């Protein structure tokens, strides 16, 4: 005997498009994250350079990565919700 899922699953016509957008955003973020790791590995002295307002690259890049993740999350949600509303109308 198998369980029923905790909720009924509804067909989602936007799934493929959302997944494509997700993959693109994932690669954009991965690229920027890799940049941080690569500087740390090969040019660690760059991390100490002052960039803006007396803050060094390590601080700006690090805080930037955190803020970017939040901003990209909102962008992703905005487009996904639009796609769902458009493609799942008939349901």
């Amino acid at each position, binding site marked *: 005997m198998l369980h029923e899922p905790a909720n009924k699953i509804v067909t989602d016509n936007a*799934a493929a498009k959302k997944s494509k957008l997700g993959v693109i955003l994932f690669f954009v973020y991965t690229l920027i994250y890799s940049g941080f790791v690569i500087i740390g590995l090969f040019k660690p*002295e760059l991390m100490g350079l002052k960039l803006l307002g007396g803050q060094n690259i390590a601080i700006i890049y690090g805080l930037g990565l955190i803020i970017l993740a939040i901003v990209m999350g909102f962008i992703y949600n905005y487009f996904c919700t639009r796609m769902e509303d458009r493609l799942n109308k008939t349901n």
Partner: protein
Amino acid sequence: MIYEVSKLAVIIFLFIVGLVLGLSFYFARKTKSSASYYAAGGKIHWAVNGIAFAGDYLSAASFLGICGMIAFSGYDGFLYSIGYLAGWVVALFLVAEPLRRLGKYTFADALDSKFNAKSIKLTASISTLIVSLFYLIPQMVGAGDLVVPLLGLPHWIGVLIVGSIVIFIVATAGMTSTTYVQFIKGALLVIFSTTLTIYILRNGLKLTPSDDYHKFDKIEAFVSPDNIVSVPDSNLIVKTTQVVDKLLFVKLEKNGESGWYMLNRKENKAFLDEMLYTTVNSGGEILYNGAPKSERKFYQVGHLSRIVVDGKEVDETGPVGPFEFIKTIESSDVTRFTKKSFSDGEDKVTVWYQNVTSGADIMKPGLLYKLSKAAGATFWNKLNFLSLMLALFLGTSALPHILIRYYTVPSQRAARKSTIVAISAIGFFYILTLFMGLGSMINGVLDVESSNMAGPLLAKSFGIGLFSIISAIAFATVLGTVSGLIIASSGAIAHDFIDNYLQVEMTDKGKVRAGKIAALSVGIFAIILGILFKGMNVSFLVGLAFAVAASANLPAILFLLFWKKTTAKGISASIIVGILSSIGIILFSPTMYELYGLIPQNAPIPLDNPGIVSIPLAVITLVVVSLMTQKDNASKDFNK
């Protein structure tokens, strides 16, 4: 270190624990079916679920571990914040919605939804259990660390209290009460971390952290050309000297009492600087700065040795803004206390010497993870850094206790929205860790024996009320995360293994009972592990749990979602290889050697973070085994 216990702290602590238990009683009456036990009936609002995600994820490692690591090693601790958050990007963009589409209660369900293969049920339930146990260790260690200053109880009692309360929460009401416990704790943690940060910024930077901060002895000394140390003060006698890693430690005797100092040379002058030290004599007795613990000779440390604002040296800055705070530390010098150990006759001596570190070095990676040639970074140092950043990035979306939270909301859209609420709350909190960590570093609050207590002890310096609230929240933090982990483990045993793999016939009530018994067993096991691993930095331990999760689970999830040729055997093989290789590397790593009491340099694998080897290994296994077993897939019709 010895701590005073305050009544207020105990009252606030009991209040929060009471609140949590009350909630569990309330929801226990509503939990009758297995769907409500494992997935809260799928009825949690997305915003509540989002904050509960934060409560689940921001474990003892984040609050206690990261703050402590930043307080002792500067920016390198912040690397964990960056990596932990980046992991959510993987969870949101790749894993959240598809997994919600595939699964029922657990991550094993989702993996298995396509194949219905026994091998996946078994391996996925084992990996869930192992990852959850790895993650449980640091939570329990952190809980023990917390009750020492809060309630004045020994470490093991703390572990026992947390274990018992959590078993109670989970066994009574399952996922619903766990969710609300995590929601409350997540919200409180973010609110009070913000409060603490405001206190830090208003307090500003000062050369003397507080009026009762220890004044360090500095004794004039002479060093002969052949490195013999002598002191002009005739009351002092140089008993012995020790050279450890090019540092010269000196034991001085005054009126029959002895103490350890470090030689510090500046231009033509030489000084002996006071240190903190413990000695363990042949009888196993531990002395703190030469006296038993109860005499309280051990003090809290960490201060700025020079403050520079706009090129001028000052004694204090007054209130500062967040960017000014970071900028000022970067141009100033901080005295950190660095640990060294050596033997003196039959005594084992551990010293923490004053290590004046420039702010510029603190504000970039390198103090813990050596990266530059100037610091003597080796290939293995760099690989460790890469490995850590990889495991943190890929680990989050492979943590079973996080994954199960996708099944507690009503729809995919709700799963996505709650993930975004989670990312925002968690991201904001991680930015605060930088301030809380640096604040602890410079405000004379550090207990050199336990890096995990930096945050709460900092709160204590701003008042016992704030300390009590922060500690109680930290304790609730542990409760929330441990409950989530135990739910995940009990799901792995009762739902994935007994019900799905062994296919034991059970009524729905029987399934809930099996889940509760599993929760009890895992809870007891976690208590034992928590006592055994006392004294390790909890963030480091969680880093290892991430590495195991990223190696065992993530390749399986991602390939299942994005590669059509993946087979059941490929998934099971990759889970097994991921578990074995990551744990194998951990067991033979330098850090574990130190824990065993062996010499770290003798460890056969000079790598502390296994991800860089074990993750690719799991991926290769999955691809090779899948390609070899393509026939299995050909006989199945996946289009239905």
